[in-house]
């Protein structure tokens, strides 16, 4: 509670944007399912709130909502995204306050409707409304390239594409990048998630450079495969708050880059193991 109060103060000092400058809408997308969009949305949103910005997380995965549980806010839901776009309730009524940060909010997806319950035009209007209230709106996009995707990107100013170092995920990311650019969302930024330094080292996983070479877009962060993501999801507390989490550190850096800071990539090198030493000894490396 104390932390939250202090952050709000900081927010007022630092940003001082009460209705002056417009906020930014950032969509987190991927094409392929299960690569870490929701995890990324939760961590970027929480990271930005931690840094003092006012943030709203929007779950657009209608029918398969998840951002609420990842944030640990599933028990507080009364209204949802579809209630807002169909004017069943006012925006303020549907926004759920985060437990930890008073400047962080969630607009949950509807669970009982399907993706056609919202139109891209409605999403665009909602985005405009959110920009007046918040510094950042983070949109968690559903998998796929159909209406759910079109809804999620409709009001976005910027896009973040998440992929894992696998053939199918990179392929889908390429497709998504093409679709984003066709929709005039230029210069999407890439997050490579679930990288495993051990596998990269022995040549069994594509490295950062391999993927950048193929996709030819800017990198905004690399998140390692990390058990602390599972633990933090179990708890409903994004790992960006956990000082000891490697993935958390990666997300803290991504948060800074979103604000325009230049931060070096995290060192993901694995300490030299027993087998490495033997290989060196036998002259294999």
């Amino acid at each position: 509670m104390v932390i939250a109060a202090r952050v709000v103060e900081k927010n007022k000092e630092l940003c001082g944007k009460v209705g002056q400058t417009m906020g930014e809408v950032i969509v987190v997308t991927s094409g392929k399912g299960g690569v870490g969009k929701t995890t990324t949305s939760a961590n970027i949103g929480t990271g930005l709130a931690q840094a003092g910005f006012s943030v709203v997380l929007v779950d657009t995965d209608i029918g398969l909502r998840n951002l609420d549980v990842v944030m640990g806010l599933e028990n507080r839901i009364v209204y949802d995204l579809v209630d807002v776009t169909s004017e069943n309730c006012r925006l303020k009524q549907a926004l759920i306050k985060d437990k930890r940060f008073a400047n962080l909010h969630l607009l949950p997806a509807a669970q009982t409707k399907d993706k056609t319950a919202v139109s891209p035009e409605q999403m665009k209007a909602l985005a405009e409304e959110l920009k007046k209230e918040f510094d950042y709106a983070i949109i968690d996009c559903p998998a796929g390239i159909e209406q759910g995707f079109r809804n999620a990107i409709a009001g976005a100013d910027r896009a973040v594409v998440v992929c894992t170092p696998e053939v199918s995920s990179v392929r889908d990311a390429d497709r998504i990048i093409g679709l984003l650019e066709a929709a005039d969302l230029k210069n999407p930024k890439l997050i490579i998630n679930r990288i495993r330094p051990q596998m990269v080292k022995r040549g069994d996983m594509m490295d950062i450079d391999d993927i950048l070479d193929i996709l030819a877009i800017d990198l905004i962060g690399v998140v390692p495969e990390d058990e602390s993501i599972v633990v933090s999801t179990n708890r409903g507390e994004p790992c960006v708050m956990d000082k000891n989490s490697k993935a958390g550190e990666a997300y803290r850096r991504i948060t800074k880059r979103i604000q325009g800071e230049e931060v070096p990539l995290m060192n993901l090198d694995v300490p030299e193991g027993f087998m490495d030493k033997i290989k060196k000894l036998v002259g294999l490396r």
Partner: protein
Amino acid sequence: MLEFISRILGKETASSKSLAKERLRLVLVHDRASISPAMLNRLREDLVQVISNYMEIDETALEFNLCQDERDVALVANIPVLKMKRDYAAKC
């Protein structure tokens, strides 16, 4: 003996990542081409224009495709020539 050790330590196996990269490269040539038939169409029109400087071609019978085998992707065009342009040769 050393061979045996190196096999255990996994030096022999070609890295699967280069396989992944190569397969991706190929599949993306096709994906990107099929996403933008507009681009292929423009390329086709540009080509016809350039070739028409040198010869008269049968545009209606022109075939124009991206072909792929195991390792390569090629742009294959089959362009029936009706007539060579004599005046162009004279100009050079």
